[in-house]
């Protein structure tokens, strides 16, 4: 039972950073801008959030600083791709590399330091319910905010005029432009939102999930986010499902190892990736549906004046 509690409660926390970054990336990609710099933006957010928290003692300041810096970093991507019409793939990769370097510079003097982790919320009697309490009601606030973010993102993208505008621009920026929509402005906003969310996701890693700063601690999670967005076919609930699935599989892998079952641990280490990809591929196997949902202009150079 302890193992089950560990996996369920751990999954909510493990998926939180992925969900913040993935919701941001989803919105950016829906508007037609691929940003492969997530890893770097998360790393920068992690370093910035950690340093800001260490200096100010306030988690709010930490997360805000991470969001602002992540947003600024993504703005470079926005300017390069939207104003100078740079290739999105190349620009995104450059931003990613820049972000990794920046994170190391920001965190230099804090290498290997720790902070107090973000405290759990107190739900009073709810937290004391056996099994359910430790699973769902002994988490920090960001875990719940990430769930709120899933609903808000889903609502805005699919049910509001703003969402319609974003999707229209992602589908055909030329037509949207002809209709008088502010393509560059909306895209820049979406990319900036993506950067800010990636920054917050990174800061969650360094101030709550593993409350320490060490260079390289994002360790590829930014790439998982990119993969989740694509394999989740840009549909909010699927991307969120993918994040939780990936989180739970990574924890299950470690639990199975600790059970001492005789399964090669390398095979176990790839399991989260394989299972997540297979699951998302299976639920998204309808090709026509994928074409309907994938932003048609994703990755293309902007062809408006």
């Amino acid at each position, binding site marked *: 039972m302890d193992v089950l509690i560990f996996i369920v409660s751990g999954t909510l926390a*493990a998926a939180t950073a992925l969900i913040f970054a993935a919701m941001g990336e989803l919105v950016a990609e829906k508007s037609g801008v691929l940003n492969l710099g997530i890893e770097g933006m998360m790393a920068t957010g992690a370093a910035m959030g950690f340093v800001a928290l260490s200096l100010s003692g306030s988690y709010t300041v930490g997360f805000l600083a991470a969001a602002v810096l992540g947003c600024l970093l993504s703005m470079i991507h926005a300017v390069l791709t939207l104003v100078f019409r740079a290739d999105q793939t190349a620009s995104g990769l450059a931003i990613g590399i820049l972000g990794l370097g920046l994170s190391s510079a920001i965190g230099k003097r804090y290498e*290997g*330091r720790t902070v107090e982790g973000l405290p759990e919320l107190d739900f009073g009697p709810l937290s004391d319910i056996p099994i359910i309490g430790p699973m769902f009601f002994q988490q920090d606030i960001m875990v719940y905010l990430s769930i709120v973010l899933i609903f808000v993102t889903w609502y805005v993208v699919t049910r509001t005029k703003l969402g319609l505008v974003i999707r229209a621009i992602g589908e055909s920026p030329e037509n949207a432009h002809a209709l008088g929509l502010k393509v560059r402005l909306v895209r820049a906003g979406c990319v900036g939102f993506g950067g800010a969310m990636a920054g917050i996701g990174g800061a969650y890693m360094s101030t709550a999930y593993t409350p320490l700063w060490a260079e390289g601690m994002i360790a590829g*999670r930014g790439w998982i986010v990119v993969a989740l967005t694509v394999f989740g076919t840009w549909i909010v609930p699927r991307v969120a499902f993918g994040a939780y699935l990936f989180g739970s599989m990574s*924890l299950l892998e*470690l639990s199975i190892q600790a059970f*001492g079952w005789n399964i090669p641990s390398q095979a176990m280490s790839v399991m989260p990736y394989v299972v997540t990809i297979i699951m998302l591929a299976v639920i998204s196997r309808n090709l026509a549906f994928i074409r309907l949902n994938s932003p048609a202009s994703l990755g293309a150079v902007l062809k408006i004046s």
Partner: protein
Amino acid sequence: MQRRNIVLSFAAAATFALPAAADDPMKIGFVYPSPIADVGWSAELNAGRLAIEEAFGDKVETFFVENVPEGPDAARIINQMAAQGADMIMLGSFGYMNDGISLAERRPDLTFIHASGYLLADNFSNFQSRNYETSYLVGMAAADVTETDTVGIVAAFAIPEVVGMINGFTLGVQAVNPDVTVKVVWLNSWFDPPKAQESARALMAQDSDVIYSLYQDTPSVVTVAEEEGVWVINTSSDMKEYAPNWLLASQIADWSSFFVKSAQATMDGTFKGEAFWGGYADDTVDVKSWSSSISAETMAKIESAEAAMRAGEFHPLTGPIVDQDGTERLVAGEVIDDKSMSGIDWLVAGVETRIPQ
């Protein structure tokens, strides 16, 4: 992207004037694979550099480059150090080996000491520590404090050094309490602090009340143990300040004596490439910050085992030893030889998890 600082740090200069030395100070360059933090591998190597400065004063001048990725960057930096007139170069990572040895062949006038490799030349030594000795001692302490009779290990990769340490640890555990179960979670990654922390939690969820953090260069495992109130043992740096209440002990390696000896030999022109494998007998390994919660009886056992290893009278891997499959690896009284130890690929009986094949 990897920023690196070339820092010239002159040997602590005496405040009162000394007559200038007849010739220039000997220059020693250090190449570290990661940033020098407060703790961790590079910090340990850097302590060896400081020991050289302390031992030789203004007769040496040391400089270092940190955070050097293995590969072309390392080659460039090593060659640059030689061009800057270094007399001796310390290479802090396995992957610097080939670049180091090719420079050593071209420049027989320089000396090299290289961490954890296996190549040797007349002017090229390698160095490692016998960490399994200290693993044995901390294993005894773990068996003493566990109440659930389950201890968990968070291990990076199943390389011989790590496997040897798990064996030493388990034998130490069994020397105090043969009924304790040892579990291992392999990370299959050298560096992933969040995953290390998840692994520690996974082990705790399965009753481990002592966690052995094997080669996690960050305080990831140590901090989660402190938070959860579970005993923790750390490798390669003392992390007492990160877990003031729950740190059981820290295994450390101290390169000072080997570094100083190598620098002295370079200075005297008597340097001879060797494979240095330092243990208690050479003052290279030690355990720091023993917890006061370890019983006096076990502590006495630990101290006598330590004394026996310092005197070279005891090896943790002394038969009879049976591996996980029940094969007898060492008969009663047989001591493992260094060659088998340095390539060890089997775990002793009592470890629940298998080696990834």
